[in-house]
């Protein structure tokens, strides 16, 4: 069996993480629903988390996991404030998409 020869190295995780990040970035650019855009941002953050843990395991350093911990906290904060903004915008502009909130456009 081919799988028997394979050893799991950090490169596997980094490739997977790169693909996840690219998918999230494309989704952020393509979708217009602000909630789905937030989910794509979460996808990109998770890709980075995978990278952090892979590097941490590779170097036998717990710093990678510490970084993931802080990313988790910041992601939670970002979601709380972002969803509050979405709720506030939807009160004034029902059915708003990201394109409708262009008041600050120069």
């Amino acid at each position, binding site marked *: 069996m081919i799988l028997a020869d394979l050893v799991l190295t950090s490169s596997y995780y980094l490739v997977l993480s790169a693909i996840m990040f*690219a998918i999230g970035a494309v989704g952020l650019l393509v979708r217009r*629903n602000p*909630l*789905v855009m937030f989910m794509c941002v979460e*996808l990109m953050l998770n890709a980075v988390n995978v990278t952090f843990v892979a590097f941490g395991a590779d170097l036998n350093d*717990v710093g990678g996991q510490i970084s993931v911990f802080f990313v988790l906290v910041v992601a939670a*904060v970002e979601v*709380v404030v972002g969803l509050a903004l979405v709720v506030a915008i*939807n009160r004034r502009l029902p059915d708003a998409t990201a394109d409708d909130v262009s008041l600050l456009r120069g």
Partner: protein
Amino acid sequence: MSEVITFLVAAAVILVGALGVVTAKNPVHSALFLIQTLLGVAVLFIVQDAHFLAAVQIVVYAGAIVILFLFVIMLLGVDRAEDLGVDSVAGQKPLAAIVGAALLAGALTFVLVATDGATGQGPAESPTGELVEQRLDNGLTDIERIGRVLFTDGLVSFQLTALLLTIAVLGAVVLTRSMRRSDMLDDLEPVGTELGSLAPAGANDEHETSGHAGEDEQ
């Protein structure tokens, strides 16, 4: 070998979920696909001996953040299908595809070109069993190691996250407080009167909300 199989299964689950988040027309479906991706990432954390992070990933991400997403989707009633066939900016999808391909190519170049392994720590084929031995020699679980670093080297950062969370709670309360009818009508009035009438009322609101939030915390 079992690690490789676990990784491949988890990677398939993650990528299907990630594509689902982007392509699902209904936001509820996107949220459910996001849960699938997050669970796959938790499995990858377990494979890499990050058991604490795997638990936190499931509890905080899948259990709290995605549920918050679903809660807002239901609250706003925006769980209708989005028309993905229309580009709001001309050529949006081709441009997005180009940007995504460039990102992917750039990231993969660094991974695949590296000769000394991804971290430059010797050959990438170094036996993984050795690393596991080292970890066990420490005699500490990953929770203990994280705790030791977090409460010594990362103490200031850790306390700053507490401040950040407090600010986020206050911000959420201020942003989503129920607006009075007079505030909504101000949008229709000319700009000059809006500034004069809003300033004192807004200042009072700030005091009220922060006072309530303070009570809640205690």
